[in-house]
């Protein structure tokens, strides 16, 4: 099933487009990496696709319907988000953060019902942080915090998840663990995950498609196999050296 279809999309702030029109589409269960230099527009693209900012022009279809036609609550049930910014409050518990993912489903006072409780528990277990649930979020390591934010997004129960540089600030073993978790979520739980990253060598082992983005250039979607033994990366990013993949 096609979860995302982007047509002639111009992204940018106010009326200024920062990239040529974007045309991509995505099927469910895919793990997509967005790579490109800082300042190329990765964040702007994410903010536009998650409906935080409006597109300059063009259309974004989500699950067969225009993104702007969804209500805030409906969007919250479709798109999950994992960011590099982290909550910073002394007495915020891991359980509190994860349960906040249920917010679009709970009542006016945010009461956690039995169903919510089950999904929260399941999310904690999938990510493997059940033993951390009573800890204060602020006392965790970066890698653990990252997992909590992913568990929050799983509790949100959305078909699509965007992750902004999930592998930044965490150590190598945690990166590998995170990549295999993302892969598992797409293959076994049918989530569609789009993430940005600079860990090129690692991400090639796990992703399905790769979106290349660079200042002023057309965004291209490439199959992993197309990149291997090819000069696409070298040409796209204007590199002097050969990249052997």
């Amino acid at each position, binding site marked *: 099933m096609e979860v995302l279809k982007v047509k002639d999309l111009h992204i940018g702030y106010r009326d200024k487009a920062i990239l040529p029109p974007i045309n991509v589409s995505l099927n469910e269960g895919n793990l997509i990496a967005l790579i490109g230099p800082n300042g190329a527009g990765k964040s702007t693209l994410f903010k536009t696709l998650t409906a*935080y900012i409006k597109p300059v022009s063009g259309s974004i279809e989500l699950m067969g319907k225009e993104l702007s036609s969804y209500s805030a609550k409906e969007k*919250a*049930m479709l798109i999950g988000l994992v960011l590099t910014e982290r909550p910073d*409050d002394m007495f915020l*518990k891991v359980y509190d953060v994860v349960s906040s*993912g249920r917010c*679009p489903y709970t009542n*006016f*006072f945010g009461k956690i019902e039995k169903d919510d409780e089950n999904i929260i528990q399941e999310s904690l277990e999938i990510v493997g942080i059940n033993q951390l649930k009573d800890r204060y979020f602020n006392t965790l390591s970066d890698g653990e915090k990252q997992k909590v934010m992913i568990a929050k997004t799983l509790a949100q129960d959305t078909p699509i998840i965007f992750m902004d540089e999930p592998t930044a600030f965490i150590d190598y073993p945690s990166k590998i663990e995170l990549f295999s978790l993302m892969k598992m979520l797409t293959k076994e739980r049918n989530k569609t995950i789009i993430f940005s990253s600079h860990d090129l060598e690692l991400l090639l082992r796990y992703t399905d498609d790769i979106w290349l983005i660079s200042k002023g250039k057309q965004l291209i979607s490439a199959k992993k196999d197309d990149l291997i033994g090819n000069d696409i990366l070298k040409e796209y990013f204007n590199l002097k050296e050969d990249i052997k993949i």
Partner: protein
Amino acid sequence: MTRNKINISILIAIIFLGILLFIINLLVGSVAIPFTDLFDVLCGKKSNPTVATIVLDYRLPQAVTAIYAGAALSVAGLLMQTLFRNPLADPSMLGISSGAGLGVAIIILMTGVLGGSALSTMGIWSNLGVSLAAFAGATLVLMLILGFSSRVRNMTTLIIIGLMISYLAGSMTDIMKFFSMKEDIHAFVIWGMGSYSAVGTSKLMFFSTSITLGLFASLFMSKNLNILLLGDLYADNLGLNVKRNSIFIILISGYLTAIVTAYCGPIAFLGLAIPHMTRFIFKTSDHRILVPTVMLIGMIVSLLCNIIARMPGLEGNLPINAVTAFIGAPVVIWVILRKR
């Protein structure tokens, strides 16, 4: 689970402490009242008319004012701290108290210079006039802040704008005072020290009803406040209309502060310190627990401050601001140090 049990025990202890402090508030003052006399008065039994007057007309309304003002200012502070995710945020930072001060300065100058007589000579009208002017000034600043808040996305920018409005209002107040009559400057200084005695029996009904409305509104914000703790982007992604929500929070917080400041003067530090104390006592950041407990602890600390301000042996009252700062400032320093 155990934390819940601890919290419930603490809560029960705190409620008892609150009742105790309330009774002490009625007993203690420049005239000490024996407990049996107080009991007679409260039960409507025949008693010494002087004692009845002191209790029913002065101490009871003052204690009730302390309770409402404490709850209102503390919740207003909690709302600001969560909205701005800044431990030092409180409504006075947005210039709301300075706006109230400016309102008071304007009415004093107007009656003094244009009316030709000092406001303080006008009896009951001076009290009412000061309250109305303070409320108008606070509301004006609140509207300004709301106007800016729909334009700027960044909360730090809004804090800076608030601080600048605060300075502007402060300097305008100073200019007004320069042209005011001596007697009225004295009245202004008294207002600025804060007092729970100005509400009195006649205005207590209006005062308590308006504050109750604001407190109820803040209870309904609990879920949104919890989501805001994650940051604006996450809150937006979870379906919260961040901008509209910010406006509601500023409105409730400003409204509560405006009412208290209008009647009691700018009371410092309760809004800043009580939310921190409550977080440390209950070890939580869940606003479904925090909002009501902040109200409760705000009431209790406010009652305590009122007792200290009227310690036996003191002729008249200490300014309430001197007492709240004495309790509040160390709490804030302690919190900042603990955070590291």
